[in-house]
């Protein structure tokens, strides 16, 4: 057998095995194996993610960097040790700030029970917008639970393993959120494009929608609790010949720079992720 055909055979074999795994996964037979494999991977993800965040905080704070440099000059003997310590403290302060914000949010909604989770990674597929958080079924996280920050809605839990979970962001094309515009009280449906752009669709033509108006979850359909801030209207597209008007929305939460999120643990959704 020539080298080319043996390679073709190997490629075909591997593709067939991958196809078999795909079918087994669709049947739900690989859930336990995936959970097992994700345990060490999730641990490494969390470890690396924390260090990357600390490094990024350090790199993006020029004033603090100068302070650090001055401190290093004064304490040359302990430079390496102090740098590590400062980075760690900075990260803790940053984390405390985020947690304080989240705590403030949680206090405004005492009826909800939250599980705080660190964001340990993002989806590696460019077509899917989701994040990995460092809490799973061991901490009481369940599929479909809404995820928020102090600034607004992030998404909802799509997959749960023992120590990690995948959260489908509201910017994922598969995500659908029923929303209400705060001032005009119009209902609509929030969807996302593949580039993460958010749109509210199905707004009645007769309603006057203005840029800057706040978009809240409506709670319709039972997928999300009501009145969680989702975003703000940026532009409105209204055409006379269309049945509904649409609006582009800027998400309230900074979905590209999430560090810690809150899972609303006592909300039981009535629909699976992906459905409105």
């Amino acid at each position, binding site marked *: 057998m020539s080298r080319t055909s043996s390679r073709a055979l190997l490629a075909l074999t591997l593709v067939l095995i991958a196809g078999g795994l*795909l079918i087994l996964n669709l049947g739900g037979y690989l859930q336990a194996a995936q959970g097992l494999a994700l345990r060490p991977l999730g641990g490494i993800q969390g470890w*690396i993610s924390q260090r990357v965040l600390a490094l990024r905080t350090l790199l993006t704070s020029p004033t603090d960097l100068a302070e650090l440099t001055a401190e290093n000059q004064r304490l040359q003997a302990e430079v390496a040790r102090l740098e590590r310590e400062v980075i760690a403290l900075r990260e803790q302060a940053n984390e405390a700030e985020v947690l304080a914000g989240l705590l403030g949010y949680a206090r405004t909604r005492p009826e909800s029970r939250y599980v705080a989770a660190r964001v340990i990674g993002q989806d590696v597929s460019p077509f899917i917008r989701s994040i990995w958080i460092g809490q799973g079924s061991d901490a009481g996280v369940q599929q479909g639970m809404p995820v928020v920050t102090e600034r607004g809605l992030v998404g909802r839990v799509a997959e749960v393993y023992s120590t990690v979970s995948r959260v489908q962001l509201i910017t994922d*094309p598969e995500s659908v959120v029923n929303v209400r515009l705060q001032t005009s009280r119009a209902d609509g449906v929030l969807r996302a494009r593949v580039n993460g752009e958010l749109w509210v669709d199905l707004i009645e033509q007769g309603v006057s929608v203005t840029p800057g108006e706040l978009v809240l979850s409506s709670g319709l359909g039972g997928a999300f609790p009501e009145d969680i801030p989702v975003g703000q209207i940026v532009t409105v597209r209204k055409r006379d010949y269309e049945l509904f008007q649409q609006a582009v929305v800027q998400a309230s939460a900074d979905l590209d720079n999430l560090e810690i999120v809150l899972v609303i643990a006592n909300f039981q959704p009535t629909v699976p992720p992906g459905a409105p």
Partner: protein
Amino acid sequence: MAYFLGILLMALLAVVQSSVLARFPFLEGTPNLILLACVSWALTGRVVEAMLWAFFGGLFLDLLSGAPFGVSSMALVVAVYLASLTEGRFWEAHPLAPLGVVAIASIVYYGLTLAAVWLGGHPVDPTLALTQVILPSTFLNLLLALPASQLAGRVRQAAFPPPVRMG
């Protein structure tokens, strides 16, 4: 040994892809480290290893993704197989050959992944996916194609030096 080390490397690259690169997006995208590593390794002539790395690397990517499990694995194996077809061609030794190979491998990989995600019921606008995801990601892969193939060539030379005839 190379198989085992390669698989470990793929696991590490998948985690870096998810936890590090995703924090520093450029042009709304990130390069695919596993695709670059496997295609570059295939271009050094170690095709069988590259294919197995692609298979396991794809599984690691799928573990850290919402895409159907096995899809990246399939797409990467096909991309590496296509890259291996350049072996023995008269332009194989051209210094810019990795650019063409990585471009084709990237488009095949993202195209297959997109098709699988779409078949899996994920609503994706193909035009937006092409202009906002596939082309920027392919461009980022191209930016790293030459350094990656140079690095792979050096590792190949160091780890598997060509046999020298004595006497």
